[in-house]
């Protein structure tokens, strides 16, 4: 009987440990949604997570923003027909479809950034944090949300609009919202951000969104909407802040001037082993088996490099003596060895002619600065800088019929580039001058394609450009259906995955699936 009692005890111990505590296990090496989001420091971290996706956003933005345009192309390499190369080529050649990795990646990055911003905006309301901190954090989050949506709405048109945190499966299946409504949300967020964000007073800036960043974002939105009168005061306000041009164009990109006085908003990178590095330079340099003679560091870029290569169309459109040519584009000179380019030295792109037996491959030089490890540079990515404020100002004044008021702003940029002042008074012609100035000044800053779309010139310019490419005889790889640019191409396709999961999501017109 005694033994039975002991056993019953053992059993009951067992059964009592059936209680919930034994089964209530939580991660010990990370926070959960329940335990996080309590303090100001935690909200700062959550906000940082939204910034994090800027780097993802810009990873392939050059494909959509530059390679799609007449500014850059790619080095065709028949050996590498892998998808990563193919999809980049397809965006450039207007043969892309809804399974394109690069357009899809950008979509995902933007929405992840939005989701992280939504978490902050939703949750901070009910937490006891000092108002000042709450305001800045909310302001930055709203700026980021607006910024991501602005990318999306321009690239894809109507897009699903999430302004609340997604908490479960049902909330994840949203339909597309009319772009006007998306724009309204962007404007509302940006206006609120302008109210909440501080003005940058010291340089270099921190890299966070500031009042200036929100102002130019809103101005950019208005410019795209052709609401010039509404853009003008915002731009004017920017000219009265602490920003200014660097004396030399090349200085804008110098590592020492990161977040400097010309910078309004940049994507932050930092070389080193922290995972914050910028790898993009190695997408842009030619395909080589040894990169030492270009970047000073050895790696193989046979499959990773040779993208976003400056076109001769762009190079030839620089005005004589424009210092921006040498600052923006360099030539890697070398020889072909067994079909592989072997670079020997970097040459200036100004009046470059390849010597006998050599070939020269142009590449983007703006982002080539000293670094120690391949695929790991320190360069920030310029998003908005003061030169663009000036060009926007010139454009919006000209568009409002105030061409003469526009010229001083334009000429500030031209003079810095070593060019004569423009005195073009014809608004229509001046529009062309400003457009060209934007192309050169902001080359390789992912503005060109969207500028072409904004100005309504995309179809005309790109068809002409494509026809010239095909006529040149140097691009035999181009398929017959390439560069058949129509209005369909003004928007990228909604990613295929989104539409097979959410079958109610519509596709942009003209895309087959």
């Amino acid at each position, binding site marked *: 009987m005694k033994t039975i009692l002991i056993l019953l005890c*053992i*059993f009951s111990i*067992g*059964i009592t440990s*059936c209680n*919930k505590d*034994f089964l209530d*296990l939580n*991660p*010990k*090496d*990370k*926070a*959960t*949604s*329940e335990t*996080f989001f309590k303090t100001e420091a*935690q909200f700062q*971290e959550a*906000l*940082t*997570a939204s910034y*994090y*996706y800027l780097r993802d956003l810009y990873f392939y933005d050059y494909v959509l923003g530059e390679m799609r345009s007449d500014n850059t192309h790619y080095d065709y390499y*028949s*050996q590498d*027909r892998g998808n990563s190369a*193919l999809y980049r080529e397809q965006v450039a050649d207007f043969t892309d479809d809804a*399974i394109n990795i690069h357009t899809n990646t950008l*979509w995902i990055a933007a*929405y992840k950034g*939005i989701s*992280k911003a939504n*978490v902050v905006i939703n949750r901070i309301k009910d937490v006891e944090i000092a108002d000042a901190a709450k305001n800045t954090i909310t302001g930055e989050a709203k700026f980021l949300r607006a910024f991501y949506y602005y990318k999306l709405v321009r690239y894809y048109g109507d*897009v699903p609009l*999430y302004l609340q945190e*997604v908490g*479960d*499966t049902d909330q*994840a*299946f*949203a339909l597309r919202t009319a772009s006007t409504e998306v724009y309204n949300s962007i404007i509302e967020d940006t206006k609120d951000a302008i109210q909440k964000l501080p003005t940058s007073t010291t340089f*270099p800036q921190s890299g966070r969104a500031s009042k200036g960043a929100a102002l130019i974002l809103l101005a950019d939105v208005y410019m795209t909407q052709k609401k010039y009168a509404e853009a003008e005061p915002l731009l004017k306000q920017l000219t009265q802040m602490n920003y200014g041009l660097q004396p030399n164009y090349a200085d804008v990109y110098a590592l020492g001037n990161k977040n400097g006085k010309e910078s309004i908003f940049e994507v*932050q990178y*930092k070389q080193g*082993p922290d995972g*914050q590095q910028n790898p993009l330079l190695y997408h842009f340099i030619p395909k080589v088996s040894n*990169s030492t003679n270009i970047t000073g560091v050895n790696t*193989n870029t*046979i499959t990773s490099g040779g993208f976003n290569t400056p076109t001769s169309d762009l190079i030839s459109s620089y005005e004589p003596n424009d210092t921006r040519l040498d600052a923006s584009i360099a030539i890697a000179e070398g020889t072909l060895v*067994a079909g592989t380019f072997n670079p020997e030295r970097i040459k200036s792109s100004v009046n470059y002619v390849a010597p006998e037996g050599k070939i020269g491959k142009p590449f983007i030089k703006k982002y080539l600065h000293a670094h120690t*490890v391949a695929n790991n540079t320190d360069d920030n990515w310029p998003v908005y800088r003061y030169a663009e404020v000036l060009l926007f100002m010139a454009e919006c004044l000209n568009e409002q019929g105030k061409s003469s008021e526009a010229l001083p702003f334009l000429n500030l940029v031209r003079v810095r580039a070593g060019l004569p002042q423009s005195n073009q008074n014809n608004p229509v012609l001046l529009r062309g001058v400003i457009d060209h100035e934007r192309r050169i000044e902001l080359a390789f800053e992912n503005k060109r394609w969207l500028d072409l779309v904004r100005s309504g010139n995309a179809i005309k310019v790109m068809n002409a450009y494509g026809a010239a490419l095909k006529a040149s005889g140097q691009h035999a790889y181009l398929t017959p259906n390439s560069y058949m640019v129509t209005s369909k191409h003004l928007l990228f396709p909604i990613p*295929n*995955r*989104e539409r*097979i*999961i*959410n079958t109610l*999501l519509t596709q942009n017109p003209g895309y*087959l699936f």
Partner: protein
Amino acid sequence: MKFYEPDFYRHIKVYKLILVMKLIVILMVVGFLQVNAKSFGQKVTLAETDTNIEKVFNKIRRQTGYNILCPADLLSEIARVTINVKNESLDLVLKQCFQGQQIGYSIYKDMIIVKREALKDVSVEGRVVDKSGNPLPGVTVKVKGTAVAVGTNDQGRYSITVPEGSVLVFSFVGFVTQEVAVKVSTTINVQLLEDQQLLSQVVVVSYGTQKRRELTGSVATLKADELKNMPVFNISQQLQGKMAGVQVNQSTGQPGKSLDIRIRGAMSFKGQASPLYIVDGQPLAPAVSGNGTGGISSINPEDIESFTVLKDAASSALYGSRAANGVVLITTKRAKAGETQIDFNSFYGLQVLPQHGRPDLMNGTEFATFMQQYYQDEKPGVPMPVEYQNPEQYGEGYNHYDILFRNAPIQRYALSVFSGKEKSSTNVTAGYSEMAGVLKNTNAKLFNLRINSDFTLLNDNAKIGFSVAPSYKIDHNARLNTDNTRQIISGALLSTPLQPDVNPDGSFAPVPTSPNMLNSGVNWYRYLMETKDDYKTTRILGNAYGELNLLKGLKFKTQLGVDMGGETRNNFIPSTSVASKLAVGRYSATNNSVWSIDNTLNYQTTLSEDHHLDILVGYSAQKFNQEHGLVEGNTFPSDDYPWLNQALVKPANLNYSGTMDWSINSLMGRLNYNYKGKYLLQASLRRDGSSVFGPDKKIGYFPGISAGWIISDEHFFKTVPAISYLKLRASYGVTGNNDLGADFYSWQAQTGTFNYVFNNTLVSGRSISTLQNNQLAWEQTKTFDVGIDMNLFNERISFTYDYYSKLTDGLLFDQPIPDNSGFSSIVANIASVKLWGHEFGINTRNLIGDFKWNTSFNVSFNRNKVTELVTPGFLGGRTTAFDDYWSTEVGHPLGMFYGYVYDGVFMNDAELAAGPREASSLIGTVRMKDLNGDGIITFADRTFIGNPNPKALFGFTNDFSYKQFDLSMVMSGELGRDMIDGSIAYTENLDGVFNVSKILANRWRSVDNPGDGIIPRTRNTPLARAVNSRFVQNGSYLTCKNIALGYTIPVSKMKYLKDIRLFGSVQQAFVITSYKGMSPETSISGLRGWQLGVDKTAYPVPRTFAFGVNIKLK
């Protein structure tokens, strides 16, 4: 005094129950009267068959007028009576009724008093031998109906003191139990015969054992004896083809890796779908991909005594939550009472890569010709590279595949000592196994030790046992990513045959490459030879149990187990291995520990003679903890010191450590009931709680019920002498699966790291990285099973059939959700899959006598269909056309091959104009079928192009023996399945960038030289590389897994030797298949149910020639 009135009968029953004590008193009184029996004049006529004694007494009472007084408890002990007498004397009739039983009787007045016979003790001794006269030690000699037992010693001798008239039961595993009545003689020598029929075997089942004949579920068993002929590194290899419905697949030849085992097509999206392994009652930690600290890869095959596979839910429901994929119960060898034995087992073998199936790529001249023509056809203006100007100069060129391989030895040495004493027994096995890979510079080594000890205490009322089994395994490059395209094997294969891997002086050559080729930057042979990727796995399995008999039939058992596993990985790829790449080093460690406790109370009793009850209640708990970490670095000053303290750069985002836990606790109960041993019923219920599910869904209930009817025990069946045993059984049960892969907290919204830079300084970023799912619940499998077991013709044929139907509900997986939500998936219960099938097993003894021939054949026909799947109604196959082979869709079987339908080549302009075209279509390029009829080829023109689920799985084993010789042959195979050779996308690449298959010589070159109409032109046409129907082949096969010939040397006169057996074997002796690749068993995703049947240039499975010796010492 009337005791037996017909009407009084019922009262007597009550009387018996309530007044047992009183009866005994009466009996004692009666006993003292000492009345001698007088002769009876009364005659009795009886015709009874298998009748209860009470009924017989009643008839006797009526015919003779005598009342019969019998103790109630004795009534239930008296055997049922079969008698046919006419006018026989009462004396004779009663004697006949009690024949062979210790029952006496006396007559007092008109009363027959039945009582137990007082017996004298006699001392019995003797010797137990086998059929050849060899002594059998360790045989249990038990007095029937009592707990008194002894064991035989080394000479097979025993001695025991028993009551006169007792029956001795001689039992020994694998032999037919024999009963001998103790008569006058006090020497009883017994010859035990090997048990040819399995019915009397005791089978290990969940939380206990059961007689095979009484099983009501679907259970397959295998004894170690049946496996001794197959010398292998992993026990899993021995199970191939042995049991119906148990699929064991050798998908890769990587050394040391455990094979995938699937029971009845078990599938799971998220987890591995491996069965739950229970070793000696202790659940093992789950394994990851056949390696690591869990699973059975660290177990020495020499330790195994038996396998039991619980296939249906009713059998496995007691393991509830983790039983959905079936349960494999493994028992290890233990010393038997009275036995002392030393076993030494060893084998040495050579693994050889067969010629068949080696990739048939172009040689030097062929390739240079191909490239020359490529330049002519596709690069008309480009000058012909010198390398391709004179193709004849190359001859055979360099074979980058063959150089990777070698003939590799495999060996094992195992020493076991068994020592069984009356009250304690211990056995120890130490083993060392080594398997070099046929791929150079790969190998696996395994050191094992196992100690099992059992002690009998408290006057045989208690038992305590301990087991500890440490093991240490070293995998050198055995887990390299070899089995995928453009990894070591595939990469080497695709290299130019015009350049060598090794210079004439033996040094490594530069990266082999030729003009226009895609330069991988790797000399793959050098990469293989220089890479170091070592895993060291230390594991300790330990368990302790205690058993206590509380009352007659009531037993308490507790078992504590620990499964501790630690694994380190030390990986270094020197800078010289990959051109223009920095040296990379990694060091990672994983520590897993699991403890488990199982407490059970078991009560066995028999009521009213025919009602046998076995009740089990239990409590079980288990907790798993893992700690893991990784350090990774690059940029080493030199390759000479491959440790991370030398690395100049250690990227912060790659270095981490972390921890995870899960826990389970459970209550369970089971009732086994049988009536007369022929109507069988079992019911069980387990309640499981698991930490991995949402707060409202942590608890799951897993019931099981099964019933059996042994028809052959029915009276009416005795008329069918051909069938000696026939059982029908049916079962239904629910089992669960909680395998959520590596994330044990998936239901919770967890935070992730999202760092950024402000002020040029790294800043910590954290936010939600996963969505919460409070409704995340158990994956449940409901299984219905009916089966027949039948023995025919004097046990010469035994046959088993099962039909099962399973519905797996709430399959766990990452439900894809639109990326625009900010998340790509949420872990959820996403699908239902129905699986059903027929299983047949037949064992025959074709020849008996000196020349023996036994055959066993099993075949199973499994089918499955997806019945429900969350939005969008399919998984996989839809987001890319390349290297994604499977689509799982509602209404179709799992993981169907999905792609374009190949339709040849655009042979001329007219065909091209007719279309259907794709963006890149040109004359001479590939043509796919336009399935949606829109005139152009897009992503939407893809469909199901093959079914990798086999229609039938079979195994076929033949064992022969003649005197000292034995021969066995094991075959297994799969029929009616498709297979994709995924390497075709590379070996038939038309871009002129890889070495390619010889058949590309038949490509389209011009309208006048159009080739075979199957292979398109050399031109960059990605469409030709998209998954399409030309990749699909028939994957049916039959593999001879093992042929073994053994010879046992007669050593009966030797002093210490008991037995020596020598054997030779060939594994993977031959493969019959039309599949063109290396092995039709290859599968890049193993037996993952929705990703079967894709070969991507796997590590090939070698043929092994081995010789072995089994030595037994006294």
